[in-house]
Every structure is written in structure tokens, then in C-alpha cells.
């Protein structure tokens, strides 16, 4: 069954390649949505797709990429909305130099 999850990952999760690591996994699992760094130092993942694939992604996020130190994950399951076409990293403005 298709569902949506809003996942917040806390710990040493910014500046360790967490977003690209998540995006690769989500893409491989056929999930759509986005990942972005939050000002409070956490990583936000909004994802849609098969519930089983999302659950697997959440489990992988508990460990994260090699340099990450995940302290806590908050997950809010929601109804599937079909909002996204693909999975992307959403950058904050200051991360895109002009």
C-alpha cells in the first residue's frame, strides 16, 4: 500500500553526506519526495511510495552514512498524496552559490 512519511533525523546528520545518501536509497527503492537540511541541525525527509520501502528507508536512516551519528528519528505516517514525481535534494539558498 502506498503511504507518505515525514521523517526527522536528529544527531550529527548535517555535513556528513546524509542527504545524498538518503536520495540514492530513495531513488533505488522507487520512492519520491525530498530531503533537506533544517536550520536546527536535523534532516527532514518527506517521502511517498510503498509502505514497505519507506519502512526499510527509515530503518537504514537509523544508522545513516558512515560519518553520521544518528541520535533519534521521529516518523509521522500520513495518507499517500501523490505529490512528487521523483526524489530530490532541496537545497537552502545559501547552499547554491551565485
Amino acid at each position, binding site marked *: 500500500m502506498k503511504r507518505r512519511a515525514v521523517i526527522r533525523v536528529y544527531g550529527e546528520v548535517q*555535513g556528513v553526506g546524509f542527504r545524498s545518501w538518503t536520495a540514492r536509497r530513495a531513488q533505488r527503492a522507487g520512492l519520491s519526495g525530498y530531503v533537506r537540511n533544517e536550520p536546527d541541525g536535523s534532516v527532514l525527509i518527506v517521502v511517498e511510495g510503498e509502505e514497505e520501502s519507506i519502512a526499510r528507508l527509515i530503518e537504514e536512516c537509523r544508522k545513516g552514512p558512515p*560519518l553520521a551519528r544518528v541520535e533519534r528519528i521521529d516518523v509521522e505516517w500520513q495518507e499517500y498524496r501523490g505529490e512528487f514525481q521523483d526524489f530530490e*535534494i532541496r537545497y537552502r539558498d545559501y547552499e547554491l*552559490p*551565485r
Partner: protein
Amino acid sequence: MGYEELFREFSKRVEDYRSLGVNPFSLATGCAVKVDLLTVLYPAIRSIRGDLEKLGMRIAPRRDADIFQGSIEGFRLFREIYRSEDDVNIERLKEISPSRAIVLAQVHQRVADNPESLARVIRGIYTRVAQAAPGIIIGKGHSIVTADSKAQFMAFDYIRINNENYDRLVVGNNDTIQIIDPAEDPGSPRQTAVALGNSLNDLYTLGAWRNTTIIPVIDSPSRELTRRIEDNMRRYAESIGAKLVEAPQPRTGALLMGATVFAETDRKPPFFYDEVSPGMEILVTRPIGELASINVYMMCMLDREIAEELRRQFGIDVEKLLDIKSSIIDRMSRPNIDVARAIEKRLPQIDEDFDPSRHVAATTDVTGPGIYVIKELAELTRSSIRIDRIPLISPELSEFATRNYIIPNATSGTNGAVVMIASPRVIDEIEGELRDRGEEPIRIGRVVTKGEARVMVPSIVRKYISAKAYLKEFDLYEA
């Protein structure tokens, strides 16, 4: 050295850097991460500009370097470091009596997140400076982000012009990096060379290189590391015949290296935007995309799964990747002075008019925005530019970086490639001269029409840029 050993060594080095407060992943933008210009810095400056102008301060419009009439011998520089407005010594500033300043501001990432918080931090300091030095011009500002809330500071390099020299210009700039290659020691000569090259490149892009003067910016957690970086800077300055001038340092303990730099020129800078006309060509002095390759290398060293993917998708193994990365860092650490000389030769004297058959009309260096700098040139020159090819150091690594979400713009560069617009005849000359000097100049496109700022780019650029914020600025076409 086997991959396992490399992997372990690299992971340890990255941990060491993180303990120094440096985030190797900020390399995605080349220099130390900048405060976003459009959404944070400019609105913050706009909100305080009115009050500062009432006090007589003028903040110059955004540009890559400060330019003023005079000579290197004709001015004195005084550096003051402020952590808060209480540090601004009004009596001292009245004594210095500066006419302009180049400012480096390092602010915490939460402050850099929105214009209101940034304005709150800088307003007090700027106001005190404006009160003490009425009429001062802030010629160039460089604003960077730190993850360490205790590492905030502003460095004002005050310029007192003693002797105005009307037949020459001084070009000044400030730039900094934290590190460029996390596989190397922070005190290695290559890191320092890249840091200084990064500062100097904005002068070189304008054809300014004579009587180069370097005023270091060095911050580090240990006296020993600071001394090594200082020694490296001294040697680098000697190698390019530049003068090194000591100045006070921020001493926050967070790693940072770079410099305020000045050079002199008796030519007009290549700001002949109105002279750009259809038929002129675009040349880039060497292939771009340095940061994509460096970031792919970093990710492969951190995550063997990515290294395996790279080998599987593009047949590039870790050994080959190391070679590419090494040659890129070598190139980035070599002074780009030949490009400066080639540009200088093709600029009009101060009292001469621009001649399209002899002179370069416009230049810019390829930095974090990568190929997007062409859009900026199109806007400055109000022209439509057609790009025929995207000259990448490694199209494979840039594509891999995009496909695997490693970097949002895999055409990003730093320290070197300069883009210029000139007539085909001038481009011929520069291309030949740079080739003779071992560079790899490439003609990448041409000016099509004047009026509307547009850039037509082959749609293959999608393989190299994932950030929609950049892609939407281009007119993509099928080649």
C-alpha cells in the same frame, strides 16, 4: 596503498578536520560557505544602508573586487578585528582616517539563515565604523558562514590613501577557504596555495597582477599550524614575486585561510559590457568542474558503496580517481598569472578607448556557480549567448556526481578557469598564447544578439546540474 587503507586514513582525516570545526562537505562551494547573496546578504545590507548613508558611509554595489585610483605604494592598510560593536575603537579609527575598507565577515550559520538576524549582527559594527569614519566606502565585502557560534568576527581592512596616482588603479579583494583537500594535512603547502590562488584570481580575472601585495587571513586551533600556514604563504608570495604584509588575525581557533590581496594596473578593467556585440566569442581558459571531481573523490573515500558504483557505472577505479583529483589540486594550486598577463595585454590603457579588434570586453572567473557564470555575463552585457559545449575536466565524474546527488551543480569550479568575451581575432590571440603556456583554452560559444539576457545551453547540461534553481535560468536546446 590499498583502498581499505586509503578509506581508513581518509575517514580519520575527516574526523580530524571535524574536530577542528571544519566541514569537508562545505567544499561543495569551494571557498568557505558564503552567506547567500540574494536572499540574505543583500536584503540585510539594504535594511541598514539608509541609516549608514546618513552617517556618510557608502557600500559599493556587489562586485568581485574593489577598484580605486592610486598605487600600491600610495596607500596604507590597517586591519582591525571586531567581534561586537564594543570592539570598534572610535579614537583609533579617527586616527587611521580611512577612505575605504575591504570587509570579511564570518557569521554563525543561524545568523546567516535570514537577513534580519544578519542585519542585527552587522548593524552595530557598521554604525560605529560609519560614525568614526564619515565618508568611508566599503569597497568589497566577503561574508562567510561558520558552524561555530564562537567563531564570529568581522575583519575590516582599512585603506588610507596617501597619494592618489591618477594613471593607475589598485584592485583589491578578500577571499578565504577552510580546506580544499581533506586527504591532506591542513598545513600542507597545497592547501595554502589554493587559498591564496582563490583570493588572487579575482584580481587576475581583471588583468591586475603587478606589485601584488598579500595580507594573510589565518585562523587555526594551534600556534604550530598557524606558523606552518604563515610559512607556506611566505613561500607562495616569494614564488610569484608578491609582497607579504603582516596584519592582526581573528584568533577564534576555527580553521580559515586566505588573504586580502591587492595588485596594480595601468589598464582599464574589462567592464566594457556595452561594447559586447553579436559575433563576439566566449572563451574559457581551461576546463571546469573541479569541485565535482573533488566531491566525488571525497564521497568515494567515505562510502565504499559509491566507489563501487563509480567503477561499475564509468569504469573509474579509486586509483584513477586519485590521479584525477591530484592533478586538479595541482592545477588549482598553481598561480594563474599567465591568464592575468594575457588579459592585461588586451586591455586599453587608462587614457585609451576600447577597441573591439584589440581588447577583451568582459571577463569573469568560474567559481561555485560553474557554467551559470555565463548567465551573469549575459545579464551584465544584456546579450543572448549561445553555448555550444560545456567544457568539463571529467564529464564522467560530473555526470556521476549529479546522478548520485553528490553536488547540486557539477560544473562548479574554483581557482582558475576564466571566461572572457572578445572578438574572434582577440580570442584567437589569447587562445594561442595560453596554449603556448600549457593552458587548455576552449571556445565554448558566442554572443548571438543584444538586448535580452539569455543563455542557450545544450540540454546535456541536465546531466551535470541537478539544482532546478540553476537550470531554470537557461534556455535548453537539443544539440
